[in-house]
């Protein structure tokens, strides 16, 4: 099949410019499909609950933005719903995301270092043990994992929220892969200089891993911030709620007559940190994503 485009020629500028518009049009449509739901959420967060509840939400922003965001951020009661103040939920989400991201990086870089730079009995057994976690997402072991956390008394604690998610086969594999590319000469030179394994790790391996750490951090921060099933299970008290869970609790049955203005303000706030991380750290983000899946 031949399309119009095959007949274009670099000299016949006219047809070419028309053909050039098609990709732009389709891409813009794509951007629109992705931006529209976000735009409507922003608009929703700037009107009052009654306007939204009547189904009269305009397509342009209203004047209630400040009131809505302030109310969602500070207060625990809308006109129709009770909720945990967003500042508490955001704080919980932030702690969860940071501990998971940094924790995964820390324990993975250590185990990758052990596997790559030492030879010791049971090395491969440990390696496979870590590898197997890839095949055991929390969803396939919900109840028993919950029981373990409950027996350890970690329900409604930050430890319970984060530690069970902190093992990472992907990060370990990524660091190990990278460590295998560190030249032998570097290790030998360090040994001749009298540096031990710990020195070498701190002075050479850590600095060399900077980009990998940054890239992984972006991916893992988003992973942590967006957790759903696990926080749903291990948090009961409102003070431990994360913001993603908080939104669905606020929605409840999704009736028309609810504080949609507060829900939308909360949704916008919940989206901000991960979106900011992706947009501001785009370079590392793409690297992290592509590398960690290799």
């Amino acid at each position, binding site marked *: 099949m031949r399309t119009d485009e095959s007949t274009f020629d670099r000299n016949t500028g006219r047809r070419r410019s028309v053909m050039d518009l098609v990709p732009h049009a389709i891409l813009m449509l794509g951007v629109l499909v992705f931006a529209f739901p976000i735009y409507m959420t922003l608009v929703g967060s700037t009107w009052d609950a009654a306007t939204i509840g009547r189904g009269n939400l305009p397509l342009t922003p209203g004047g209630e933005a400040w009131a809505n965001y302030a109310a969602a951020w500070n207060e625990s009661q809308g006109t129709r719903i009770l909720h945990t103040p967003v500042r508490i939920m955001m704080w919980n989400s932030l702690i969860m995301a940071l501990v998971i991201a940094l924790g995964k990086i820390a324990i993975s870089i250590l185990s990758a270092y052990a596997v790559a730079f030492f030879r010791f009995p049971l090395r491969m057994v440990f390696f496979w043990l*870590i590898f197997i976690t890839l095949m055991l997402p929390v969803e396939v072991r919900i109840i028993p994992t919950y029981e373990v956390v409950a027996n350890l008394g970690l329900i409604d604690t930050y430890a319970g929220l984060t530690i069970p998610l902190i093992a990472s086969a992907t990060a370990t594999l990524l660091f190990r892969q990278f460590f295998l590319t560190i030249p032998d000469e570097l290790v030998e030179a360090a040994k001749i200089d009298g540096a031990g394994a710990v020195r070498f790790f701190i002075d050479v391996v850590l600095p060399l891993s900077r980009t990998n750490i940054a890239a992984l951090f972006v991916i893992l921060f988003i992973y942590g911030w967006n957790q759903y099933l696990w926080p749903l299970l291990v948090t009961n008290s409102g003070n431990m709620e994360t913001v993603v869970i908080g939104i669905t609790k606020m929605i409840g049955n999704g009736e028309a007559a609810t504080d949609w203005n507060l829900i939308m303000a909360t949704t916008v706030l919940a989206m901000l940190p991960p979106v900011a991380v992706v947009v501001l750290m785009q370079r590392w983000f793409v690297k992290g994503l592509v590398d960690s899946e290799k």
Partner: protein
Amino acid sequence: MQRRVIFDNKALPYLLLAPQVAVTLVFFIWPAAQAIWQSVHLQDAFGLRAQFVWFENFEAVLTDPAYIDTLRITLIFSGSVTFLSLSVALGLAVLADAKIKGAGVYKTLLIWPYALAPAVAAVLWMFIFNPEIGVLGRALNDLGFNWDYRLNDTQALLMVILAASWKQVSYNFIFFLAGLQAIPRSVLEAASIDGASAVRRFWTITFPLLSPTTFFLLVVDIVYAFFETFGTIHALTHGGPGRATETLIFRVYQDGVVNHDLGASSAQSVILMVIVIGLTAIQFRFVERKVHYS
């Protein structure tokens, strides 16, 4: 595989591995073993006595028409999400990869939805397609469609499929774009000079060269649709109306956490475990081999 030059501490490697291995054993291996144990036992209501029942729990689950129905819904859901998010992402990536003005801007505008939690994506869609307050939900009703995804099975399934695919497009887009950028320009230019149309160039050169990426994403998207969309479904429809949007993973949560049916829930967990192990094995086997060379 290991480095040639290594350190020779005796205890240090174990120390380095300890945190990761501890987390893995306590929160992954032990609960998974528990799930397997529970799946072949029948426990009394108080959890005091357990009887070994071979595969009775599995038999009960697999002969339950409701479970078969859940399986059918999961397949429709996963198939649709995978196909939709792959094809849309591929189309957009091909366009954004073409040397057009502003490709970088489109890239930024298309990748950020990756940062959204599946549950948040669901809330955005709910706010737009709610039949009473949503801009598009009301528009559909005004146009004479009988639109209410809270009551209509098919519409509910359509909603969760669209919300879940919408979120996954950006992920696929990033990988397709990376894959496209790795294809040598000279090959495409040669075909262009030989008079191959854009469509022909795509199907005979680009698409086959992209097959490793496509295959990898196929597996990732299936895993996503199976496991990570729990938040989407929980936030959007709670599995309803009735059980119209209950996928396997939602069912495990429902039976285990909500209905406290340990035997059934753990049998389902084990079934899911087998599915993940299968998918991971396929992924590692074929990604290593680079599909299109074989």
